[in-house]
């Protein structure tokens, strides 16, 4: 019974991380930019929910999406656009700076104690009483992830904006030569990543209804690692990587013994165990777990 319980928990966490991985992977695809500040977008959404506790949930969630999307687009115009031709290292450092800036602002403005979120606390209740605890929010998380990924797949494969995004991700220079509008494609990808961040903010606050300035920071680091482990060059492998990290983190948290003497308690060595796995994976498959070795296209003349 506990095994099934752990697997359900792990799948739910994996779904949320998969959404974050898509958000990070979309922007990386078109900008070659690893957005370290992604977690702070989620944090901003979470604070929006916390500050609108008295509102009806719908209004609260709508404002959360508006704030996160606004912040994402501001980030694009103020930071990413001027640095578009800068080196990847400069862009990464810039996103670090944004990340710390936003965390500090949150700390100064809202204090170190944190704020409770009451928007969707009802979803944190179990569906039914019993030995197996399935919370509503997990169902919602898995459904939202499945629906969002499906919709994204349709967008990428069935629309011309999607085709332009895929082309831009593979070879931006050639895409521009063909008349693909760089700004439109980049804004589209950044906008989508903002929508995903807002959705993740709503889901995570329902599970952990307490917002601090480092909210979603640890999750972002784990997802970033997952994206690299899965293979950052492709959206689907990055997404799978995010899911895998969430699943493994959730599963190890459940399967590792939670009692015993220091240091053998799961909360202490969970991260160590996860990152040992990461190191092993990268040693064996440096290109990414889900990128098959034969995928290099051989040019035939």
């Amino acid at each position: 019974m506990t095994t099934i319980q752990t697997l359900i928990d792990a799948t739910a966490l994996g779904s949320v991380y998969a959404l974050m991985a898509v958000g990070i992977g979309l922007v990386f695809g078109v900008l070659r930019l690893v957005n370290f500040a992604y977690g702070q977008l989620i944090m901003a959404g979470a604070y929006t929910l916390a500050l609108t506790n008295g509102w009806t949930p719908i209004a609260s969630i709508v404002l959360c999406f508006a704030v996160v999307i606004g912040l994402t687009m501001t980030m694009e115009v103020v930071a990413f656009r001027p640095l578009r031709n800068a080196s990847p290292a400069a862009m990464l450092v810039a996103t670090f700076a944004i990340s710390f800036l936003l965390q500090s602002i949150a700390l100064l403005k809202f204090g170190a104690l944190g704020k409770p979120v009451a928007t969707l606390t009802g979803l944190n209740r179990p569906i039914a009483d019993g030995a197996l605890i399935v919370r509503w929010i997990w169902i919602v998380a898995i459904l939202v992830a499945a629906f969002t990924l499906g919709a994204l797949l349709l967008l990428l494969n069935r629309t011309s904006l999607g085709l332009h995004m895929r082309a831009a991700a593979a070879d931006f220079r050639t895409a521009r030569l063909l008349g693909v509008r760089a700004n439109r494609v980049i804004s589209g990808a950044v906008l989508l990543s903002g929508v995903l961040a807002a959705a993740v903010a709503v889901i995570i606050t329902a599970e952990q209804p307490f917002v601090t300035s480092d909210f979603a920071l640890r999750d972002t680091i784990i997802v970033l690692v997952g994206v690299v482990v899965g293979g950052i060059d492709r959206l689907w492998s990055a997404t799978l990587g995010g899911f895998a990290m969430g699943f493994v983190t959730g599963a190890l948290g459940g399967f590792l013994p939670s009692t015993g003497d220091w240091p053998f308690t799961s909360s202490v060595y969970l991260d160590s165990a996860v990152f040992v796995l990461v190191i092993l994976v990268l040693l064996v498959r440096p290109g990414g777990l889900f990128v098959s070795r034969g995928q290099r296209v051989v040019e035939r003349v």
Partner: protein
Amino acid sequence: MTAMLELKGLEVRYGSVPAVRALNLLIEQGEIVGLIGPNGAGKSTTLHAIMGLVPAHAGEIRLRAKSIRGRAPEAVARSGVALVPEGRRIYANLTVAENLQLGLAARRSENGADLEQDLAWVHELFPIVSEFAQRAAGSLSGGQQQQLAIARALVARPDVLLLDEPSLGLAPQLVDVVFQALAKIRERGVTVLLVEQRAQRTVAFADRTHILANGELTTTLSPANADDTERMIAAYLGART
């Protein structure tokens, strides 16, 4: 005759090193102009400057008498200039049909051309495009990829087609296929600037061919000069005639 593309005193530098110097070139509507010369002479740089891929340090680039200097590559493409880049640059992981669809990004809606008709013409010109429509473009042979790259540029219905060494790395019979296609493109009235390494073939094919050496135009040849290899070799080595 109206001037379609005009380069006036074009200068491009990489750092402090000049790659193209005081280049003047006027191409009239429907003309096929060849540009040949040794490696590193500035041929590709000239095409890249026209497309806005590299900034022009000095000089003017005019399309239909309107300056396009300083425009972004996508804006140049959308004003009717298409480049078939060196190395073909097709999207290996996308299907042939998707590659072709990307070419439509630069298509201008206002000129009232019939899309169906244009597509039919491109498919007739390069039958492999419809034959392998659903295949990954990366699985095509080099010659087929080159045909796809030209087809992709043509579906945008450009006024000016720039080709950067389309015969590079192709077997002789595939070079024939490329030049036969160019002949049909000429019939359609598209203005062409053809950068090539196959000097003799280019001189014989183009209305006129310029030789570019050390970033400067040195010699102009007509199809009648196609067998004058001595003059060509001298120009390659830097002589002005």
